[in-house]
């Protein structure tokens, strides 16, 4: 019934947190975090805002050193951004370069890492097609596109980078509900067809359950892993059907309980930790 859990022993681990902790000065944001994500898995980290999800993701991305514990990505200790890891940021309007065309936005990381112009161009166009952007937008500026299309560009930038691991920080928080559903399905499809390992951070429980093979619920202040919930909903998911099933409702209720507990015990001031 649950193919992911039966595979779990044989599939290698893509990223792992061991006793990870982080403090900003005297303020401890992350307590002891332990979890592992296997190759080809889709894992969501869910928790109320201010709980330190973004800090965790930044540590995984190598953008920030954790103050305690260690992180392994693709078998290596993370001290700096790793090759094979791509990040999609929440704020597409700020993470895309407004002065460059869509194509140049996607090719820059490739060209900067030594890929030839023609190869970078080919990969960028392929990635843009994969995320469903027409060839016509290639030479437009990102700000000429809608929010959803801009986030597609950001996803294409990550795909063209040929990542093994894709880290996503609240990637759909700034788009409208319909676009959000479309983008969720897009990412699910890409994850399957490209065999990506995806770690996505979100505060939206429905989204986390809908997308994940497993959900890591964070709680408390400093945050620790409240529980890791398996999501045995199969590989094929549908916005209406899947969300209508009893299993979905049951898992959602379970995660909700974990997170609600976190919300009542967590501190209210979130600006510092999440920024």
């Amino acid at each position, binding site marked *: 019934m649950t193919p992911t859990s039966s595979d779990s022993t044989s599939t290698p681990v893509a990223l792992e947190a061991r006793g990870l902790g982080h403090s900003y000065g005297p303020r401890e944001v992350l307590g002891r975090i332990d979890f592992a994500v296997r190759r080809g898995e889709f894992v969501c980290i869910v928790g109320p805002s201010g709980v330190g999800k973004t800090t965790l993701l*930044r540590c995984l*991305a*190598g*953008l920030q050193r954790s103050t305690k514990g260690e992180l392994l990505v693709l078998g290596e200790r993370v001290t700096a*951004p790793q*090759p094979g*890891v*791509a*990040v999609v*940021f929440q*704020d597409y*309007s*700020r*993470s895309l*370069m*407004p*002065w*460059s065309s869509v194509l140049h936005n996607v090719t*820059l*990381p490739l*060209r*900067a*890492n030594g890929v030839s112009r023609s190869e970078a161009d080919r990969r960028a166009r392929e990635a843009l097609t994969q995320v469903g952007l027409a060839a016509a937008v290639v030479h437009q*500026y990102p*700000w*000429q*596109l*809608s*929010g959803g299309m801009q986030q597609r560009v950001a996803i294409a*930038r990550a795909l063209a*980078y040929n990542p093994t691991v894709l880290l996503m920080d609240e990637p759909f928080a700034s788009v409208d509900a319909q676009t959000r559903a479309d983008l969720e399905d897009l990412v699910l499809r890409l994850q399957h067809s490209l065999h990506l390992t995806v770690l996505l951070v979100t505060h939206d429980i429905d989204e986390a359950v809908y997308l994940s093979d497993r959900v890591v619920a964070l709680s408390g202040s400093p945050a620790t892993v409240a529980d890791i919930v398996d999501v045995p909903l199969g590989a094929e998911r549908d916005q209406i059907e899947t969300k209508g099933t009893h299993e979905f409702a049951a898992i959602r209720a379970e995660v909700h309980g974990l997170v609600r507990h976190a919300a009542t015990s967590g501190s209210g001031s979130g600006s510092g930790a999440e920024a």
Partner: protein
Amino acid sequence: MTIQTEPSARADEAPDAASTPRRLGRLSWLLIQTGTVLLAGGVWWFASTLFPPSTLPPPAEVIARLGELAITGGFWVAIAITLGTFALGLAICIVVGIPLGLAIGANPIGAGSTRLLFDFLRTIPPIAILPLLLLVFGAKFEMVLVLAVSGAIWPILIQSIYAARQGEALLAEMSRSYRIPRAWYIRHIFVPGAIPFVMTGVRLGTTICLLLTVSGELLGGAPGVGFEIANAQAFYDNTRMYAYVLVAAVLGLIVNGGFWAAQRRLLRWHPSVRREQHS
């Protein structure tokens, strides 16, 4: 005209803004604007009848004199010298001020060490050193050039220091996570992100550079349009003086127009320019 304060995030909103009904067409506005210019000319003409003709000559006389001057070589030489000094001065300020400012601004120790010093130096009215420059260089083009540079460099330098700290932090993160090397980051992300702020300094520098070029010529007696204005006044030839003041105004317009054209090209992507194209 509608003023869009928020750059529209969605492409499909743009046509809405562009199609806001305008009550008057472009041509009607051109006619109205011509009318106001003519009206201003009329006011000038009317004022000239109140003053003795030597004090305030009527516009037609000044224009006629301008025509006479325009066929002399000296007229064009004066313009060429003023524009040349201005352009060279501004170029020096840009070539020195922008890289230096960005480098200082990107380095906290550099920014801290120079803050007090630059803060003091930029508030000194540049014209204060004119007598010194006159003694050292004499009434020559070099004197005017140094004067113009010593005044116009500050807004460019200081705005560039500021600009270096205004880059989008998220883009710096993006660049790190995609392991973009430093040189690429500077060329493709840091510098383009700083340009809008740098341009503010360049705009100020442009105004001050022209002001000081003309001031140096007018006060210091170095050749150029400023000198021609002072010279005409010294000979009580007020018509000629007004003609050269008009020339100075036209130079100002050309310089301003040049700046806006450059800004439009460089900042096509920037919200301020996008908005302008919509309204």
